[in-house]
């Protein structure tokens, strides 16, 4: 190899903007080659992608619709990741949140929206918190690896929801199709105009700001950051690590669960199989690309949402869905691959430097 990597001592603001930008451009170039090989015009496809995700009122509204659950789950994930708690269980927490909110909506659908919606949110967050509390407690008390336990709980949560919609909660009028009955009007979130953008967006934005303040300015956020950097230092500072592990995991789960609550209350208006197309996993990437910074997660989630919507819509240009998925994969691949250049730079293996 004529090049080798050299560690950067510091990465300035310019680098942190240029590297991802360059990564995206490279992925677009790679995607262009692919599209061209498949006989599509890259420019037309990209234009259509861009336009359908950001270029029209409706497209942008759909982008936001996708961004809301990504944002909330990524906020939860970022909180746990800050403490180096690898909560991979956001997907399951989303389902548990959706489950609990649906339970409230189905049982007390006649309550006024002012009572019902907060009750759904509370129940959902509680369920998500409990779901994340399990790996949290296991980690804090028995050193059980939370990556695995939280991941495995995802399957339990998804299958639990499947069981409910196929069995006890199935819509009696649904002719056996795996759906719960539709929620009452009182259990649905208000939306913006005729779009599907619901109140969850405001909640997500507000939470991003609150979380940022907590992390940057609060005593508790300081504890989280110190624990995330070094357990030894935290112990030395007299911090209660176990309690914070449990607390942070629970709050992380509650935030992710909120994504599930808003999906059922704002979008599907019922509990159903396949509620989340992997939001909980995509949110990990969103949180990571947002550098675990709550305020950065907001735009990253919107861009990610745009990528999803743009990816779907280029099908109408005749691009098969699998190619669209490859394009999305390329963007992520290049973005994550480019991460190395944030901490390293490329240098030439120039022998003359040594010899001359």
């Amino acid at each position, binding site marked *: 190899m004529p090049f080798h990597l050299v560690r950067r001592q510091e990465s300035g603001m310019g680098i942190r903007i240029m590297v991802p930008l*360059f990564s995206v*451009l490279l992925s*677009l*170039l790679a995607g262009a080659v692919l599209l061209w090989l498949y006989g599509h015009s890259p*420019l*037309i496809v*990209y*234009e259509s992608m*861009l*336009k*359908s995700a950001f270029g*029209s009122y*409706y*497209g942008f509204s*759909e982008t936001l*619709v996708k961004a809301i659950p990504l944002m909330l789950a990524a906020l939860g994930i970022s909180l746990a990741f800050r403490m180096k708690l690898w909560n991979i269980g956001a997907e399951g927490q989303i389902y548990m949140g959706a489950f609990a909110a649906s339970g409230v909506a189905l049982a007390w659908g006649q309550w006024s929206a002012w009572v019902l919606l907060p009750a759904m949110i509370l129940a959902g967050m509680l369920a998500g918190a409990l779901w994340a509390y399990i790996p949290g407690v296991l980690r804090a008390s028995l050193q059980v690896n939370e990556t695995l336990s939280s991941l495995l709980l995802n399957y339990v949560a998804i299958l639990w929801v*499947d069981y409910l919609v*196929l*069995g006890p909660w*199935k819509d*009696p009028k649904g*002719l*056996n*199709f*795996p759906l719960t009955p*539709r929620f009452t009007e009182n259990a649905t979130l208000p939306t913006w105009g*005729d779009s*599907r953008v619901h109140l969850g967006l405001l909640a997500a934005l507000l939470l991003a700001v609150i979380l940022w303040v907590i992390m940057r300015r609060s005593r508790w956020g300081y504890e989280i950051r110190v624990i995330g950097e070094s357990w030894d230092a935290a112990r030395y500072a007299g911090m209660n690590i176990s309690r914070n592990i449990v607390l942070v995991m629970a709050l992380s789960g509650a935030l992710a669960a909120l994504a599930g609550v808003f*999906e059922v209350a704002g*979008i*599907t208006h019922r509990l*159903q*199989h*396949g*509620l989340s*197309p992997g939001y909980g996993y995509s949110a990990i990437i969103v949180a990571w690309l947002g550098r675990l910074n709550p305020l950065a997660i907001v735009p990253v989630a919107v861009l990610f949402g745009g990528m999803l*919507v743009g990816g*779907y*819509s280029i*099908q*109408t240009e*005749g691009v*098969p*869905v*699998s190619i669209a998925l490859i394009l999305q994969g390329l963007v992520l691949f290049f973005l994550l691959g480019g991460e190395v250049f944030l901490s390293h730079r490329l240098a030439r293996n120039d022998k003359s430097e040594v010899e001359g």
Partner: protein
Amino acid sequence: MKRPTRKNLALMLLLVFMLTVVAGCADKKEESQTAPPAAGQELLVGFIYVGPPGDAGWTYAHDQGRKYLEEKLPYVKTIFQESVSEGADAERALNELAQKGCKVIFATSYGFMDSVIQVAPKYPDVVFMHCSGYKRDANVGTYFGRDYQPRYLSGLVAGKMTKSNEIGYVAAYPIPEVIRCINAFTVGVREVNPSATVKVVWTNTWYDPAKEKQAALSLIEDGCDLITQHQDSYAAQQAAEEKGVLAIGCDSDMHPFAPNANLTSPIFNWGDYYVRTVEQVKNGTWKSGDYWGGLEDGIVALAPISDKVPADVKQNVAAQETGLKEKKFDVFKGPVKDQQGNIKIEAGQTMSDQDMLALNWFVEGVVGTIPAQ
């Protein structure tokens, strides 16, 4: 001095690239903005598929219909979205097709029903056609084929071809549409082989090749020597092919994917119906309603029967097919008993369309349960 210049060069290239993209976008924008009004003759028709058109089954059949439509009506241009999940995404897809200017949108899966009903009022000028559902609106129609008819015919083949007298049925969801087909098939089987039974396994998915194949393998393991399915992929057919047992496909002719195992497939021919519907919309004669065509319309049929099947069986199938086409009899003609042996349809009676659309019990000979409602 080397590095800075190289960096500048890279930056310049980048800039040029970005400018090209922007310029390209700008150009196209003008074109696409002026295009639709100019092409006033053109009629845009949208399709939403639950799976990929390459599934060689349900979605493939609809996609064949779409291509047929484009071929027959030169003024029609079609666009589609594939693999749209039956939840929140369906609404997005419907909205998008409507906003792209589609005048007719075919939503081709049962689970799109509520999304169609939700979106349709926003686009009163667009005709929404929902396949296999029962909810309608001023601009929402429903359509389907009487697929239980060819299912019954395929049962006549299966009953004669099974040796173990155990037939496996890989089924998607326990909804009336699927139950109806299982019953029709079983009626056909028992008509020619009263001691045969049909074992049903639910997968709770329309399209999941891995899961479908797994279900088929477990049925074969269980002693079934003939596998049929109500799924969108041909995975169950392949399982049968691998294990050396027989199979009957569905929705499209699945023979090419399991040339040894596959005997025949009950299939859909949506093309003619799509052409008729679009013509009605174009002429302004379209009205909301329900269409449920049978063998006589050609919307459903039985694919060519394999040479493995004896000639007398083929003759019997042909005879029954003619009978059904000429409406000399029905598939569900009394006496029909349920699994417990209770008479559900008295001798001389037939089942009404209404009952068929809400079917929630298995006929005698089916082994399996329908989850409680």
